[in-house]
């Protein structure tokens, strides 16, 4: 029995060592830098994005004139080689946020790599300003560079020139204008009232409604009431008849519908986050549908 113990123990030690070796050779999970940041977009986010903001500034000023985008045209065109200088500065500003978006990036490396990439002389003044702020040591040297503008320097002259392709095409305004719009006054968000909410509302109204005498499920009659809600689900004002079938029973049916709606408020099954959906709805009182 002792030899069996020894054999068993040796076997376990061997397997343990083998496990150590194989686990060591397996590399840790793939490169961390390969991660793709993923944002979860819910329905609520979509509806918020589609909605215009109530407190957005009124954009009465005309939208900015679109400048040209750097796409060569087929047909050769005679164009002035250098555009006026102020124009360069105004459209040098908009593309900048595209290169350095304010939201934090998962990996600082691309950001660092971008800076040396900016060999475009248009950005050099900004770069120098950044360096001046960050680096106190290099300050005197940088100042020297900036204080000698009169010295002839080919690179500085090149900096003044417009390096964009003169044959670039004019882009449409919607491409360049990235400012948020106020939204149309009646814009509806993409989110829909859920079927359960509609069913719950219908059920509630069915419970509250008592058909007037002479109206039963066989009566072919309807009345549509426009209802305005408050965010808490109560009625903002008495329901208004917007349509109805021509029938002597119509007024009685409309009155019973109004009573039902007034008695049953507030309608708490309507969720506040979808208020834009049910703020103003039309309820169709149809004995055939409500009685069953």
């Amino acid at each position: 029995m002792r030899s069996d113990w020894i054999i068993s123990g040796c076997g376990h030690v061997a397997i343990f060592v083998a496990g150590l070796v194989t686990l060591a050779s397996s590399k840790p999970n793939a490169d961390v830098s390969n991660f793709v940041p993923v944002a979860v977009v819910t329905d609520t986010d979509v509806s918020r994005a589609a909605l215009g903001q109530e407190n957005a500034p009124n954009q009465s000023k005309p939208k900015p004139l679109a400048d040209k985008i750097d796409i060569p045209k087929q047909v050769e065109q005679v164009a002035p080689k250098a555009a006026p200088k102020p124009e360069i500065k105004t459209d040098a500003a908009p593309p900048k946020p595209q290169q350095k978006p304010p939201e934090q990036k998962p990996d600082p490396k691309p950001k660092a790599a971008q800076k040396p990439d900016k060999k475009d002389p248009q950005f050099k003044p900004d770069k120098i300003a950044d360096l001046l702020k960050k680096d106190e040591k290099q300050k005197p040297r940088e100042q020297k560079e900036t204080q000698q503008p009169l010295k002839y320097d080919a690179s500085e002259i090149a900096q003044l020139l417009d390096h964009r392709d003169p044959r670039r095409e004019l882009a449409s305004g919607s491409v360049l204008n990235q400012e948020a719009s106020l939204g149309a006054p009646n814009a509806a968000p993409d989110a829909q009232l859920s079927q359960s909410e509609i069913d719950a509302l219908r059920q509630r109204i069915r419970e509250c409604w008592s058909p007037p005498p002479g109206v039963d499920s066989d009566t072919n009659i309807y009345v549509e009431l426009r209802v305005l809600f408050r965010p808490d689900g109560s009625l903002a004002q008495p329901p208004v008849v917007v349509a109805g079938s021509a029938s002597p029973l119509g007024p009685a049916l409309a009155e019973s519908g109004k009573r039902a709606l007034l008695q049953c408020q507030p309608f708490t099954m309507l969720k506040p986050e979808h208020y834009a959906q049910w703020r103003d709805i039309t309820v169709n009182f149809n004995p055939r549908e409500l009685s069953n």
Partner: protein
Amino acid sequence: MSSSSLELVTLFWHAHWIVKLVMVGLLVTSVWVWAIAINKTRLFARIRKAGDYFEQAFWSGEQSFEELYKTFAAANGHSTDALFVAAWEEWKRSIEAHVRSLAGLQVRIEKKMNVTIAREIEHMERRLLVLATVGSAGPFVGLFGTVAGIMSSFQSIAASQNTSLAVVAPGIAEALFATAIGLVAAIPATIFYNKFAAEVNRQAQRLEGFADEFSAILSRQIDERG
């Protein structure tokens, strides 16, 4: 590289002491299970071989029972040869003592062989219960270690106020390691238990079959003498 190569060791070393206890216990149990398995495998191989060898010699009829007895008495076997030796001893003793009633001899020999069968089966079954127990209780013991480890790791999560995967994962991994060891111990134990239980049954049938045949032969001889 050195940190990852010691992953198993660090996994063990960072664990809660209850988890450590469970892990060590299960590791020892695993060694024990395999020791029993190796021991039983050898034992059954020996028994089968000895039984085959003896029965071949027995049924060939080349040797007399006395010669067979002399050959196998010293071997102290655990199979049909032990049965034969026990029965023949009783026969010789009775014949040499010139017992009057040979009817009692038959009963005595059968009893002797039954006792021998019971003893041999007990010898074969010894420690098999350990395998059965480990097979059924091992996963539970490992699970206990896991539950204890996860509890302690949750406590440390609450203490650090941080729920990132880097904080949660190591504790849970070390806790799950306990269940892994439990399964590593229990699965071979169950397999070996079933294998050896079947083997014991087979050997018991073989012994009983030989006992019946041999007692029939002896009964014929007793009748011839009587």
